[in-house]
């Protein structure tokens, strides 16, 4: 087996890199440490170290989880246009999309793990050993699809990369069905996550039939926004050939997705404000505040403006094709959707509470530390995977050259600006 050489070679690649690479790793290592300190404190004293309380029983962690599910889903859905438009670097895009998906799903699972009150009882969720409440609990479905999706993507990526290492043509009959399967899986992780919220009649803010479509639409904005930046960095700093057309195409698709996203939001807002039932309270809390409690208001409006501005940037060909405005647009989308999913979905769902209480939530220092740690782990995993994947894709690392020739001078850490 060549697997040992593959592993050894990978180690060599990880340990060789320039200043930029090492400082990036050091930075991520610091983030992980910050997270570890935060989590240790949380374990010790309990979730009382967060700002969550009975009226708002989920917060920042589950918001991040929801956002990242979208990133994970959308990363792989890029596979569709890659196949339809027959871009030259299809394989590369598929691989990068999947690497991103894997790291995003791992972050999702970590965010759930840090949110639960009894992490020592995680095994209760494992079917057979524990007692997974399937099919009644949608969260049980979510556990299954998220893990399935993670495994699926890991298998495909590892297989493709290993084939590149042993210089064997990847078997299409093995890999194509898996790649195609990952598409409905990507849709399902997001749909099921939406249904976790959507299926709760107690929370009118979530109990809306267009929640799942809204989730998908916003995911198709945020996931590609990351890939867009990533592709440009790879284009600039590596020998990977990525055509500008490909990047512009993604931007164009994002414009459509953003349009649908905004349209669906508008549809919800119309229904609530025009009919003015007591469900309106949650939107009021989000956009205008209730009784002077306005913690979310600036975020809500910033998110709307960022999304509209990004939509215009991606819609107009001139701004879509200009790298400066293009990246600004990606950033705005990222910010807009992050706020929408991370803050403006979870918290107004709980505020006011079912008994009418308005508890103003904003994340505690511990929550922020832990989140920094989780993102640190995610980026670390992505960086390390990409570090090995790149020379493999470029044909610089395989069985004939298990000591990668250019490992030393390819110092630039690609994802440095992705966050």
């Amino acid at each position: 087996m060549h697997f040992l050489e593959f592993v050894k070679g990978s180690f060599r690649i990880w340990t060789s890199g320039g200043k930029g690479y090492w400082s990036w790793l050091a930075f991520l290592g610091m983030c992980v440490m910050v997270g570890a300190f935060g989590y240790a404190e949380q374990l010790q004293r309990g979730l009382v170290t967060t700002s969550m309380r009975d009226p708002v029983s989920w917060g920042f962690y589950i918001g991040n989880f929801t956002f990242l599910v979208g990133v994970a889903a959308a990363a792989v859905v890029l596979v569709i246009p890659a196949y339809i438009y027959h871009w030259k670097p299809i394989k590369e895009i598929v691989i990068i999309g999947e690497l991103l998906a894997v790291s995003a799903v791992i972050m999702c699972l970590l965010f759930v793990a840090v949110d639960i009150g009894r992490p020592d009882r995680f095994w209760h969720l494992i079917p057979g050993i524990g007692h997974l409440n399937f099919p009644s609990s949608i969260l049980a479905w979510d556990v299954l699809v998220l893990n399935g999706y993670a495994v699926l993507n890991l298998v495909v990526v590892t297989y493709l990369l290993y084939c590149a290492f042993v210089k064997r043509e990847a078997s299409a009959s093995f890999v194509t069905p898996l790649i195609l399967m990952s598409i409905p899986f990507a849709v399902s992780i997001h749909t099921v996550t939406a249904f976790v919220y959507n299926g709760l009649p107690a929370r009118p803010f979530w109990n809306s039939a267009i929640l799942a479509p809204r989730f998908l639409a916003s995911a198709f904005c945020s996931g590609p926004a990351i890939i867009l930046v990533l592709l440009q960095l790879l284009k600039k700093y590596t020998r990977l050939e990525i055509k500008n057309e490909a990047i512009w195409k993604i931007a164009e698709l994002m414009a459509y997705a953003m349009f649908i996203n905004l349209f669906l939001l508008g549809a919800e807002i119309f229904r609530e404000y025009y009919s003015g039932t007591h469900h309106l309270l949650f939107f009021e809390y989000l956009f205008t505040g209730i009784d002077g409690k306005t913690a979310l208001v600036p975020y809500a409006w910033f998110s709307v403006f960022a999304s509209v501005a990004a939509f215009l940037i991606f819609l107009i060909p001139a701004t879509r094709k200009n790298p400066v405005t293009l990246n600004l647009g990606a950033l705005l989308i990222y910010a807009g959707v992050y706020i929408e999913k991370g803050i403006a979905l979870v918290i107004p769902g709980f505020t006011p509470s079912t008994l009418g209480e308005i508890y103003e939530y904003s994340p505690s220092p511990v929550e922020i530390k832990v989140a920094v740690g989780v993102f640190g782990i995610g980026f670390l995993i992505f960086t390390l995977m990409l570090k090995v994947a790149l020379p493999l894709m470029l044909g610089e690392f395989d069985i004939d050259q298990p000591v990668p020739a250019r490992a030393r001078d390819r110092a630039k850490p690609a994802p440095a600006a992705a966050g």
Partner: protein
Amino acid sequence: MTAKAQVTISDNRETGLSRRGFVKGALAAAATGLLASCSPAAREAFFQRHFRELTQDDKERILDRLEAEYGRKYGGEFTVDAAPAAEGVQFAYALDLSRCVGCRRCVHACVKENNQSRDPEMHWITVLQMDKEKGIDLSHATAYYNPKQVPEEGHFYVPVACQQCRRPQCVTVCPVGATWQEPDGIVVIDYNWCIGCRLCMAACPYGARHFNWAEPNIPDDEVNRDTHYLGNRPRYKGVVEKCTFCIQRTRNGRYPACVEACPVGARKFGNILDKDSEIRYVIENKRVFILKEEINTQPKFYYFYGV
């Protein structure tokens, strides 16, 4: 992780964590693993199966272990009972809104009876103050009223606790089946099985579920040592709890503590299947209603105006 492993730590109040704190945390985490492999009691607690999968023998062993554990923690003789539901019993509750004065004696009786944490404070019953002009409108109600004397002019009071729904949303959504409905209609939680994901709190339309954000604390001399496994036995950090119609009392033919404590007799309780019960009388002779009927959780907690 046993409750024992966690009791000592509430002095660490600073938000930033010292290196010592970190080491302590890491040690606590490691200790969990070690405990699970060393002390037989801790290992048993860790690997304990879902309550409904336990055999009679398992149950007896577990109840003994818990009695010993609680005895060590609070002193005195503890009983942890697991009396099952009786045949032909469906418990229901009724509350006379025209009598309730909002004094909250029920709240405090409940806290005492059911070993709710005093620090941080937890209440299973929320008494909402409402404006007479607005009627029953939860979105304009407040649980934070503090006059010198109740009832206050222009207001009335609606106590809310678990409504023991016939279609309990909280049970449907729990990913590990840690909460379920007993044959006598009481919705219970196995505190040793709950993973603390809090989905049930998002799903409950009545804010009836409460989470132990920190290690619960009850002074030794205030602990109720007469407990039921599915009811008022002391809880752990990181799990959800709720009203169980005082399962430890009502399965032994007694009234819930809130019924006994109410100074104006606004609270009625009983077996809905028993034709001669007071609860049956109320349902047949008064005009009862339920909260949030549009959500279709079908509560067994009825409100009515007796006068």
